[in-house]
Structure formats: C-alpha cells, structure tokens
C-alpha cells in the first residue's frame, strides 16, 4: 500500500493539474477576499478543488492504460490495497488543499476577518463528496462515464447556500458517504476482476 501511494504521489506532484489547482486556489483566495461583500462565499474554492481532482483522475486512467492495475496485483498488493490507495490519495489531496487554505487564511484571511471554518467545510464537502460518488462508479464501470454522473451529483452541493451549521452538516454527510463509498468501491472493483472486465 505504501509503495502504491508513493507511486501515485510521485505522479500527482508531476501533474500540472495539481499545481494549477494550487495556484488557482491561492489567486482566488486573494482576489475574492478583496471584494466588498465580506465574508465571501466559500464556493470560490470550487474551481480550484475541481481542478485538483483531475490529478488523481488522470492517475486512474493512466493505471488502466499502462496496465498497472494488473501489474500491481502481481506484487504484494491486493485489490483492496489498490482501491484504498486511491481513497488515501484523495484524502491526502484534501489535506494539501486544507493546509493551503489555512496558510492563506493565516497570512491574509485572518487579517481581513474571514471565517476559516466555512471554507474548510466547503473544500471538504467538494472533495469528499465528489470522490465518494466518482470512485465507486469508476471502479464499477471504468473511468468513462463517471464524470457526467459526477456533475449531476455535485450540482445539489453547489446550489446549497447554507450557513456554517449547514456546511458542517454537509461535511458530516460527505464524510459518511465517503466512508460508505470506500468498501463499495473495493467490492465493485473485485467484482469487475471476477467478471474479467479488467486485465
């Protein structure tokens, strides 16, 4: 598992989507916090988070193209390790985004009186919710087609204009769905192997 994660992190840090997302989050943070109607809606983080999510998505499609999915199962790794590695990668990505938001908040946001918690909750909801929906679909049906569904499922999240309490409820819901999605992905991925859809 550690080896799988190492490989994915190497790739993620070489992905321009990842670095672009960091820049976008930073630039948007500075730009949105200068406009007059403080506090800004934390939805400004959506674009950066969505760009960031392209990085692990590309790793998944490259794994399929390079036949890494077959190869890694010849190593001391299981299907469960492979799936769990992807979930951990998304958690790490979320961690990086949250750290970036906290750093910008410390150096800029706190001085202009922006609340940190809604931003952290919002980023968590976006990343976890989309991951929780997308990964099981990807592991069940392959990489194609999951994106359209992702947009359908994400729409309600973007439309919700909730207060901090609402954000926290959404965050807990996202965490719950994420936790349910993990074993579902393992099960569906194993099923795909069993039916000979991969390899």
């Amino acid at each position, binding site marked *: 598992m550690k080896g799988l994660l190492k490989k994915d992190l190497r790739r993620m840090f070489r992905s321009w989507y990842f670095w672009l997302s960091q820049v976008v989050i930073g630039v948007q943070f500075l730009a949105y916090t200068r406009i007059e109607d403080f506090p800004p809606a934390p939805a400004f983080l959506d674009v950066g988070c969505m760009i960031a999510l392209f990085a692990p998505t590309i790793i998944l499609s490259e794994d399929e193209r390079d036949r890494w999915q077959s190869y890694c199962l010849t190593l001391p*790794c299981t299907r469960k390790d492979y799936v769990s590695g992807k979930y951990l990668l998304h958690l790490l990505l979320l961690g990086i985004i949250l750290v970036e938001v906290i750093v910008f908040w410390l150096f800029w946001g706190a001085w202009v009186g922006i609340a940190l918690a809604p931003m952290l909750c919002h980023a968590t909801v976006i990343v976890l919710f989309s991951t929780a929906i997308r990964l099981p679909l990807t592991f069940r049906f392959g990489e194609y087609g999951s994106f359209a569904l992702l947009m359908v499922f994400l729409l309600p999240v973007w439309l919700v204009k909730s207060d901090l309490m609402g954000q926290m409820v959404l965050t807990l819901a996202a965490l719950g769905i994420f936790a349910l999605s993990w074993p579902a992905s393992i099960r569906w991925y194993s099923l795909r192997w069993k039916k000979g859809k991969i390899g």
Partner: protein
Amino acid sequence: MNAIEIQKLKKSYKGFTLGPLDLTLPSGCILGLIGENGAGKSTAIKLMLDIVPPDQGSVCLLGQDNQGDIRALKEDIGVVLDEVGLPGYLTPREVGKIMRSVFRNWDGAVYEGYLRRFNLPEGKRFRTFSKGMKMKLGFAIALSHHPKLLLLDEATSGLDPVVRDEVMDLLMEFTRQEDHAVLLSSHIVSDLEKACDYIAFLRQGKLLLCQEKDLLKARYGVLRCAREDLDRLETGAVLSKRETAYGVEAIVERDRVPAGLELGAVDIEQLFVVMAKQGAKGA
C-alpha cells in the same frame, strides 16, 4: 516440496472456461505451459496469484493456500507479464525506490546489479524503453526480492533471440537452487524446450497433458519409413503422419514400434501441434 499444486481449478467467463485444471510443479524445476493465444495461460497465472478469484478448486504455492495471506505469499513470488505494466513516467531508479516500499525483502544492491547486467539506464523513463528493455526491467524487479517462485507469462514473446537467450540463462541460473521453481508460459515452444523440465499443454482451457519433458521425449519418437512399414504398425501407435517425397514421417509411441525401425527424437512443438489437432477433432 511442490512449488505449485493446483487442484480442480476452474474459471468461467462468457464463452470461455478454463479447467478443471490439475497441475503440480516440484521445487527446483521449470514448467513450460504451452498453449496458443487464448488457451487460458494468462488466466491460469492470474488465478494462481488470486488476481482473479476462481469459481472452484484450490491453488497452493510454495506450500501455502493462495486464499490465505496472499500478500505474504507474493513476497516470495516474482512475476513477469507479457507487458510490464509500469507507469511510463517512472525511471528504473524511481521504480527501485517504489519497490523498496512494496517488497519487504527488496534488495537494492541486487536490483542495481541487474540494471547493470542488462545495460538499463537508471535515469531514463520507462516509456522510452524498447520492448526488450521493458522486459529486462520486469525481470530485474521480479528477481530483486529473492523470490522462490517465478511466474512468467509470455515473458519471452516479442524479444529478440539474443535477449531471449539471456533470459533463458537467467532462468537456468535461478533454478540451480533447489527451493526455486519457474512456471513459464509461452506459445514459442522452442524457448520452453530448451529450458523446461516439465511440459504442460493447454488448449481452449483444457489441460491436454502435464509431464516431464524427458519422459515425453522417451515416450514419443519420429519414424521415417516407407508407407508399407507404417501400415504394419498396430492401431493407435501412430499419433500423426505426413507423406513426404521419400516416404512417410510419423510421430509414434516408441513402445509400440517393433524393433529394427529407427526412431528419431520428437520435438515438443511437433507433439503440441499433433495433440492440439487431436484435441480439436475430439472436441
């Protein structure tokens, strides 16, 4: 100890069934699994590694059931597939660093030794490698964690003769240790004939035979004689025959040929083709 023990292994997909498969490979030996494309060789190897779950049957590798702790079991197994599925952006040096975290017994010095032996550039990306270089890197990885069993799926196909020869030397070297064993699947029979102790024929998912190569060669022979001489042989002694300008060339069972007729050595490829054709007629 047997390195591989497969009992009544079966896997069905839509339009294809592998097995029931019974196969045993003692330690210290090389088994050649011969079969045409789509015969089920890769599926058999995936079942052994529990990459694909079986419908029925059992697999014991190195004395352990593969439904047990497969992670620990794979620590002792080196695998090379027909395509080494490494990400194209990695260099051999980076692959080494990743594999250090994958295998408990990873030996960096051995790995670097293989990179040097195979003339593989450490800093060049995998995607720029030729097919031969990719396979060599696959072998370097498969051998650098001190495995006891090697599973090679069409690992020599697509390689030039020089590289193939190097690989065969490597396998012979590997099986010098008594607790080591190799299963090598291929449709290039000449490769297997050189190196293998045991030969198994797989056709359309069915195992036609699994026997020691020397016993096979001792059992069957090639008879070149006149048509009349061949007609005098008992029914069933002749597996196949071919008329030539000088008479008849037939693959026969040595025991059922009367003394006085000179028999040549049969090669495994001839035997496989004959058995595959018989299997097709019988099907």
